[in-house]
């Protein structure tokens, strides 16, 4: 069940109606029921993995709660400061061990899923029997998302940064919440718990805004991402030597937009569904292609994943005993650059894990390492940049701003060739094509229309990309586009709304039975 399907809209409408009809204190039960129906029936997901994570998360939370309470009681009975400190340290050590066990278990499940798929064909060859049915058991949908979400809860609980939940069903709802279960965004428990427990009253304006956001997401997915997908799939799917460098460059630029439209489109739809139920999801995108550096790009792209890695990998490593020891040993060495050693190790760790989280291939590992190196080099050269800018009299004007944005696009472009290619060999051949047979003329020849998109498709793409750009510019200036249109004259306002809906209906890419292509991030 995709978010754009009759069955999902039916589930949404039914949930919506029941949610506002039942007594307010039962509203969260409706969310839980809808989430389980969506997961088990809609996605045909086998819930064993989800339940295992929910049970261990709940259990670990309860252990932490009891341990923290006992620590308070026992430390308050200590006679002096030293024994109080020792008492606290003893409890803290035990809690850390349990948390590590919990994290190892759940990350183990995640790795089992990720790599079992790779190992399955070998196992079938070895055993000579068909074990494909096991895929459903060991391939729980959304595991990459709900595992990290669960870990954030347990770590925050141990750090006393969130309240510990004593109701198992609320923990299950937090992990399985249907708009976010397959592709995020990564929610934080304290923010969601407060919203699940609050009483929600129907508001027409909110529902209208929610539907607008959902339709805007569908527009990005169906009209932009899926149309671009036809071209990109064809270009990357044919024999490499038959495609010129410029066609590959065009396909890669479009792929950058496809990935953004697809993922942010999903997030818009998920946020719209959630907003209609008065549950606000965290923002996951802030116009990443307006970023002036790679670091800024990643603060604007998949924001909740970046924040997760920063909070639970980067800071955990830097503030750990190991991080502090390395930091102490390196400080004041290498002309002051020694203090950057630990942040650089942290950065490389974050990007290595980000790479393997995204995919199980070597290409994703290299993709992660590539970004890690770029971030680390930027950090090391940060002070030098300032000197170079002064030396060459470069001012922070529009030209410099454009240069910085273009530099970011090029870095992302190079990385995206790596993850879009079918193999590392193909990626290598494409990089080589950029240099050895660019042949820019093919962009203006008939060849460009031989990869699934007609001249009219390209013209339509140009128009819809301009609409998207205009909306993005407004948002970048701090305008809330939905509010902006709400205050336009009624004719302009509804012309825009109907225009977008008609564009989705008439020019969206649908398969048989109005099915849509699967969302790209669903496979991560």
């Amino acid at each position: 069940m995709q978010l754009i399907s009759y069955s999902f809209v039916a589930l949404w409408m039914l949930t919506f109606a029941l949610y506002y009809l039942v007594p307010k204190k039962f509203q969260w039960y409706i969310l839980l029921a809808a989430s389980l129906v969506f997961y088990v029936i809609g996605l045909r997901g086998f819930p064993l993995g989800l339940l295992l994570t929910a049970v261990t998360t709940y259990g670990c939370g309860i252990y932490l709660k009891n341990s923290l309470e006992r620590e308070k009681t026992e430390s308050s009975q200590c006679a002096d400061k030293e024994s109080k400190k020792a008492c606290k340290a003893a409890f803290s050590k035990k809690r850390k061990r349990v948390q590590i066990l919990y994290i190892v278990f759940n990350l183990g499940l995640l790795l089992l899923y990720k790599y079992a798929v790779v190992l399955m064909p070998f196992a079938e060859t070895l055993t000579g029997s068909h074990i494909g049915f096991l895929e459903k058991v060991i391939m729980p949908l959304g595991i990459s998302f709900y595992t990290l979400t669960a870990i954030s809860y347990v770590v925050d609980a141990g750090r006393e940064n969130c309240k510990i939940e004593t109701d198992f069903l609320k923990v299950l709802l937090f992990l399985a919440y249907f708009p976010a279960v397959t592709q995020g965004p990564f929610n934080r428990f304290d923010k969601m718990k407060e919203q699940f427990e609050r009483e929600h009253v129907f508001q027409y304006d909110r529902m209208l805004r929610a539907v607008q956001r959902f339709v805007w997401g569908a527009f990005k997915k169906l009209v932009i991402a899926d149309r671009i997908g036809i071209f990109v799939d064809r270009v990357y799917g044919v024999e490499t030597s038959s495609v010129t460098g410029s066609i590959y460059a065009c396909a890669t630029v479009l792929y950058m937009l496809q990935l953004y439209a697809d993922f942010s489109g999903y997030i818009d739809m998920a946020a719209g569904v959630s907003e209609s139920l008065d549950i606000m999801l965290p923002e996951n995108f802030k116009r990443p292609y307006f970023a002036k550096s790679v670091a800024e790009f990643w603060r604007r792209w998949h924001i909740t994943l970046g924040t997760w890695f920063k909070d639970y990998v980067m800071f955990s490593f830097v503030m750990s005993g190991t991080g502090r020891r390395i930091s102490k040993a390196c400080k004041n060495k290498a002309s002051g650059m020694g203090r950057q050693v630990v942040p650089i190790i942290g950065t490389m760790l974050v990007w290595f894990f980000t790479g393997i989280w995204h995919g199980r291939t070597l290409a994703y590992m290299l993709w992660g390492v590539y970004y890690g190196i770029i971030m680390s080099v930027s950090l090391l050269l940060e002070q030098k940049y300032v000197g170079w800018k002064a030396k060459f009299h470069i001012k922070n004007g529009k030209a410099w701003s454009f240069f910085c944005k273009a530099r970011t696009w090029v870095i992302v472009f190079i990385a995206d060739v790596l993850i879009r290619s079918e193999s590392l060999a193909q990626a290598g051949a494409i990089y080589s094509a950029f240099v050895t047979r660019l042949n820019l003329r093919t962009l203006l020849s008939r060849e460009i229309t031989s990869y699934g998109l007609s001249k009219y498709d390209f013209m339509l793409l140009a128009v819809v990309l301009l609409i998207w750009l205009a909306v993005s510019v407004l948002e970048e200036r701090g305008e809330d586009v939905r509010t902006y249109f709400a205050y336009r004259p009624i004719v302009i306002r509804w012309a825009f709304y109907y225009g977008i809906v008609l564009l989705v209906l008439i020019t969206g890419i649908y398969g048989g039975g109005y099915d849509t292509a699967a969302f790209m991030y669903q496979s991560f």
Partner: protein
Amino acid sequence: MEEKILEILEEHCEEALDYDGDSMMEDGVIDSFTVINVISDLEDEFDIEIDAKYVVAENFKNKEAIIALVQKLLEE
């Protein structure tokens, strides 16, 4: 103490001194590398240990929050 904290902030992130919002990390005023360097200097200056549990957006939302955090750790 306040003066010293502001000096450390000025050294690593001048914009943080003029910032008057309440989400300095989310607004991109102070990035994670700067946070790490500020923490390192605060630990050295005040002989405190800032555990990872304190490194949350709430404690780095603006300069006042950082001052409050150091004050709290000094009192512990």
